[in-house]
């Protein structure tokens, strides 16, 4: 009996040895391999031992700070919810997104361009210290933009047309980033997509706001002038189909400036057909369509605008029949645009045809207080000539002064803009307003989009644009 018992003990001992061998395999031999698995988010936990740099607003107030608990630094948001979708999250459970992902190396002090001190720390094997990032986002403007969107679905993008600095980027519905983990399952399942950063990821039919691009192409090519005469009968028949006006309106004789002011579809359809597919698409490309706007964010968090088919973005060379071209000139057909792209269109016109590269980093400050880098505004695209931009500017002032966009007007400040109302076919509209102010010396450009509304762009989007631009222009300093 004793011999058998010894044998059983030896068998159990062998089992335990197998456990030890397997543990050594996991914890020593394959440890690095496990750490490198993409499914393994524990490297984020390692970096949470580093004091993550603050993300501060343009006014210096802390948007995302840190709080130390049991040796790990967790994000906190001392000034409430400010652009959570743009800022993104930093979670061991759900990974990283937004600026937190894009600037992770900087925020954790591991970036190679953080100066000598950082390099010395690395050499000595010290825990790096995170650099803080100052954004171009102005919390005062951002908060107003978020308030204006409250209770609705949509987005507001505000940028400085002269530099491309992103002043505000609001996405609604929104969420409280402070306890994302607890809300994750609800947020990720919510059909209103609160986690989506609508300004850069939301694709919307641009509708009449796109007429700015069509007008730009028309004026550039000489196909039309602001005074070109048209006659509207309410219907423009082409290629076995027809183009009609919003609400079935009939305008009669009109010039091109008035056609933009009152948003006459038939006139723009005619201009579109005069231009043809190629010139219309080229104009759109000049404003940034078909390209991913160079706002530095993780892959997929900024999407290109353009004509979309069932399988995504179509080639700019995709075939269009004349009816498609006619509707495309009115921003319908298969156009989809992000609010950021439409803000860049407004900004391009405001800035004399120069579309600036959008950015959100004002400066990076290393842990020792030295400013490591400062924003350097750059031109992205040349959309149109200064002459065309000036003509469009005047025409867009008309829209606000006497057209569909009067609700965007501000006391003592000339606003220029264009409304858009895209009918979704389910009885709801997408309401747009894009514009800039002051028209003579533009300091802010804006795009507002409201989903699921019964109202038009002039009713649902223009007043929000007015409120946000007013706040922005009242700021003592803008990026």
């Amino acid at each position, binding site marked *: 009996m004793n011999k058998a018992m010894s044998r059983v003990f030896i068998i159990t001992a062998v089992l335990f040895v197998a456990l030890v061998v397997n543990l050594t395999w996991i914890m020593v031999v394959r440890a690095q391999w496990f*750490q490198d698995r993409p499914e*393994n988010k524990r490297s984020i936990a390692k970096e949470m031992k580093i004091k993550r740099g603050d993300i501060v607003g343009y006014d210096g107030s802390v948007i995302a700070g840190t709080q130390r608990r049991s040796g790990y630094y967790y994000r906190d948001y001392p000034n409430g919810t400010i652009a959570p979708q743009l800022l993104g999250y930093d979670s*061991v459970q759900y990974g990283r997104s937004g600026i937190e992902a894009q600037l992770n190396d900087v925020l954790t002090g591991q970036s190679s361009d953080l100066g000598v001190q950082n390099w010395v720390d690395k050499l000595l094997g010290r825990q790096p210290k995170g650099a803080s990032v100052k954004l171009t986002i102005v919390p005062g403007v951002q908060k107003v933009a978020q308030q204006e969107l409250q209770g609705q679905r949509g987005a507001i993008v505000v940028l400085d047309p002269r530099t491309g600095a992103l002043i505000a980027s609001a996405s609604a519905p929104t969420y409280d980033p402070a306890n994302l983990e607890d809300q994750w399952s609800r947020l990720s399942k919510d059909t209103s997509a609160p986690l989506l950063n609508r300004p850069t990821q939301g694709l919307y039919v641009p509708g009449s706001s796109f007429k700015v691009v069509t007008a730009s192409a028309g004026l550039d090519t000489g196909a039309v002038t602001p005074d070109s005469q048209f006659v509207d009968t309410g219907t423009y028949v082409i290629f076995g189909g027809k183009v009609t006006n919003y609400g079935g309106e009939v305008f009669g004789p009109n010039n091109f400036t008035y056609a933009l002011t009152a948003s006459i579809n038939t006139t723009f359809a005619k201009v579109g057909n005069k231009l043809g597919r190629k010139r219309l698409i080229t104009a759109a490309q000049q404003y940034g369509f078909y390209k991913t706007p160079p706002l530095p964010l993780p892959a997929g968090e900024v999407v290109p605008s353009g004509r979309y088919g069932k399988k995504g973005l179509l080639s700019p060379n995709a075939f269009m029949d004349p009816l498609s071209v006619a509707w495309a000139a009115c921003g319908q057909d298969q156009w989809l645009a992000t609010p950021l792209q439409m803000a860049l269109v407004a900004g391009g016109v405001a800035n004399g045809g120069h579309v600036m590269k959008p950015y959100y980093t004002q400066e990076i400050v290393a842990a020792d207080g030295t400013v490591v880098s400062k924003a350097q505004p750059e031109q992205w695209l040349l959309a149109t000539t200064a002459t065309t931009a000036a003509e469009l500017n005047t025409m867009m002032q008309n829209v606000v002064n006497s057209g569909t966009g009067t609700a965007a007007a501000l006391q003592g400040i000339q606003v220029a803009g264009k409304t858009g109302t895209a009918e979704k076919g389910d009885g709801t509209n997408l309401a747009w307003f894009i514009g800039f102010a002051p028209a003579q010396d533009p300091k802010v450009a804006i795009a507002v989009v409201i989903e699921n509304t019964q109202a038009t762009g002039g009713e649902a989007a223009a007043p929000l644009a007015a409120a946000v631009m007013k706040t922005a222009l009242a700021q003592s300093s803008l990026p």
Partner: protein
Amino acid sequence: MSRRNLELVFLVLAGAVSTMAYVSVYAGRFREIKSDSIVYGLVFVGIFLLLHVLERIFLPQADSFLLPITALLAAIGLTEIFRIKPDLARVQGQWLLVGAGLFILTVLIVRDHMKLDRYRYLLGAVGLALLVVTIVIGTTVNGSKLWIHAFGFSIQPSEFAKLAIVIFLAGYLDDKKVMLSVPQRHVLGVPVPAFKYFGPLLVMWIMSLAMLVFMKDFGMALLFMSIFVALMYMATARAVYVAAGAGLFAIAGAIAVYFVPHVHERFAIWLDPWKDPLVSGYQLLQSLFTIADGGITGAGFGRGYLLYANHVPVVPELQTDFIFTAVANEMGLLGAVGIILLYVLFVWRGFRIAVYAPDGFSKLLAAGLATAFAIQTFIIIGGVTRLIPLTGVTLPFLSYGGSSVTANLVLVALLLMVSNRTNIIRGGTELERRRLAEKG
């Protein structure tokens, strides 16, 4: 040094190690030492000192290693539970008290484990009944039917059934070992003893298979089957029982993998956890990641990343089935191997008690308990480290769970009783021998 004094020295050592671990966790979590933490520590020390004193009176010659190992494992478990879910540590502490109570009752009421042999059929029936009851009125948790919810408690009867069945098997096999080792007939070349002797064992075997099918739990079935096969082998010294048992269980296992969806899923996850890393494979992969992060020395008690920002553990069931994962992360390879060595030491003492025991029943009882303890430990550590498919059994003394800690404390009491009797017979004082005789 006398056995009890040696035990006291070990207990003090275990206490010192536990205190350091606890202070480390507490300081990491709360950044200061508060008085109530000391109260908890004192209650814990009090429990084990009480058991030690009980041994001095009733089991003077019992093994010196088992209680200190138990104390150390329980302290590390409690510390780690406290670190993961502080509220549960208090509950676990209460279960430890209940377990100590059962330990004391076992020693006081049973007095001499030889008496248990008289009730072997009753105990066997109780063990069987516990399993049947679980199958009939049990609740399915995480796909396995191992729990009974009653009186506001969740009880895992299989933990107690394990003890009852080991006692039954030890008694039965000791009695019938001669008959079983001299087979009358051969079926397909396999020697088969008379059905009269084999019958009850057949019931055990069918029970294991029923657990596989009805409880949908591979681990428990494997545990019972291992106990059964190991005891058969130790009683008869016939390797053919091991081969037959392993073969039959392998066939049953294969059938279960094909036909019991939960078992099939566990098996598929074991083969390829990467197939669905966010849902079915999530728990096992997170466990492996967390263990791999421990490295050689570990993050330190209370210093590993075991909780997300919202205090949700990084691995679901971290405080119960996956407690070893937490320990490996914070204590590193050295600590994890240390824990395994503690279990090996425990099992070795168990077998040593068996080998030295003067009679067959004591031998089989101690060896059966040691086997059960060893196999259960192997199944769960092997499961969380993906050495074998994962099944939901607890890690003795470390995992959170009332049934586990109370049943295992009774297991310790039984082993101590066997060793006490052996040591007294082999070299106790005249007084001790007389008192032992009175008990019987």
